[in-house]
């Protein structure tokens, strides 16, 4: 990785394309490149249709003065950004390209909550779940219910995830929600889908994030602050919850994690910092179990005991996560890598994890029909 860009998350003043242009140029300039030096662009903008825009690539490339550069726009629900990254990674690893731009962006806050809720439900197996009234908070609520029943996970444990991530976001100038919350704020917040409350849920956000990745020899010429994308693995799983053997785990995350660790020759104990897909608090708890950071059923207790805080056993979501940094769907997977990049180059400011050498990003599509796990290492 040689460059990274990230717009503020929250209510944007422009459309998704403009946000993506801004993030892309920041990443390209950060890599000391000009746009025409990019070999291939990978974009994601899953909700572009709500702004009457699909096929975002040529629009962005034209605006940045690289209209002739090939591009593709990739959709994989909430893992769209990391799916785009995976394609760029594959292009470079296979020798098809030397330098790739990856950018994801979204405008969502022009949608009212019920409207956005309906659009998000399209990421489920709609014929089975969406038609029967399933919402995303509702589907994750089923997972929370089962986790609570089987492992004794409590509302207070869910709250500890929310409180930590809000605290972390206070030190992230790009975060959507920079507001500290306490246990009473959490417990007094209304239910969205029992047992998940408002403070269990990430916000819909506008924003964009971008990365420039390059083949190692090219990268070494471009930038002295390098982070290596050691592995990037994707896996799939059943789209609908009714087709799964276990509601307390996401099989695609487990498989992708296993592949990513194996390919990187590291294990969960080597991870210093992780950005995981906490679209809901229960999702962070399950993510820390699926990636092996904590044993199955222990994720809630780990969060409540502070083991996932900055300075704990492993810092989870120092950026504030989706929960507080925000969730502009297609930007999320790339913004996670941006945060790991900042952490591994010791440029994360007040939320810096001391001595971070190896980081991981976990990005889930919908309720786990797809998942990407990326492992990054600081290069010397």
């Amino acid at each position, binding site marked *: 990785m040689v460059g990274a860009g990230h717009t503020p998350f929250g209510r944007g003043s422009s459309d998704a394309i403009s946000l993506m242009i801004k993030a892309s140029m920041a990443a390209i300039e950060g890599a000391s490149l000009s746009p025409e030096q990019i070999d291939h662009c990978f974009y994601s903008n899953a909700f572009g249709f709500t702004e009457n825009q699909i096929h975002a690539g040529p629009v962005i490339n034209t605006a940045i003065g690289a209209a002739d550069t090939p591009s593709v726009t990739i959709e994989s629900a909430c893992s769209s950004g990391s799916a785009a990254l995976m394609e760029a990674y594959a292009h470079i690893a296979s020798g098809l390209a030397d330098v790739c731009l990856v950018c994801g962006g979204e405008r969502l806050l022009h949608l009212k909550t019920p409207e956005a*809720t309906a659009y998000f439900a399209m990421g489920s197996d709609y014929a089975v779940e969406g038609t029967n*009234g*399933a*919402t995303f908070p*509702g589907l994750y609520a089923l997972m929370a*219910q089962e986790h609570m029943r089987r492992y004794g996970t409590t509302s207070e444990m869910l709250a500890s995830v929310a409180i930590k991530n809000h605290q972390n976001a206070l030190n992230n100038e790009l975060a959507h929600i920079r507001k500290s919350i306490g246990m009473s704020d959490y417990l007094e917040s209304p239910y*969205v889908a*029992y047992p998940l409350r408002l403070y269990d849920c990430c916000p819909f956000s506008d924003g964009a994030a971008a990365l420039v990745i390059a083949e190692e020899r090219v990268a070494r010429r471009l930038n002295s602050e390098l982070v290596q994308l050691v592995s990037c693995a994707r896996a799939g799983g059943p789209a609908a919850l*009714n*087709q799964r053997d276990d509601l307390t785990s996401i099989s695609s995350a487990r498989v992708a994690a296993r592949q990513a660790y194996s390919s990187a020759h590291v294990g969960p104990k080597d991870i210093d910092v992780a950005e995981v897909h906490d679209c809901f608090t229960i999702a962070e708890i399950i993510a820390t179990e699926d990636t092996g950071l904590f044993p199955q059923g222990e994720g809630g207790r780990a969060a409540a005991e502070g083991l996932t805080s900055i300075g704990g056993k492993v810092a989870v979501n120092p950026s504030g996560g989706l929960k507080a940094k925000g969730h502009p769907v297609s930007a999320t997977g790339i913004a996670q890598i941006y945060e790991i990049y900042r952490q591994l180059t010791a440029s994360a400011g007040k939320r810096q994890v001391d001595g971070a050498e190896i980081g991981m990003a976990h990005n889930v599509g919908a309720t786990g029909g797809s998942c990407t796990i990326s492992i990054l290492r600081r290069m010397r």
Partner: protein
Amino acid sequence: MNMRITCRKCMSCGAWMDARSVRCIRCGHASLEETDIPLEGEVLQYTVISVPPAGYEMHEYSYVLVKTDAGMVVSGIMHVRPEAGERVRGKMEKGRCIFVPQN
């Protein structure tokens, strides 16, 4: 009113899946049998949706996973708050699966 749902069952391993499947989700076998099963079973897990999506006429409802007596897990709606393990029966109505307590 249809009180059954069409599913497919793997003739090799016995796994159930929805009617669109052409290969078994568990063992990959292509021998699937289409079967209509009664919408009767017990609530596996539930949630109460308090923020419905646009176009939904109900203010609040329960979204449930029901394990049918045949073995297939199906999703649906209840207008009351159920308990996990509660016996329910359902019917298909306007493309939705609506469950009610059995007693």
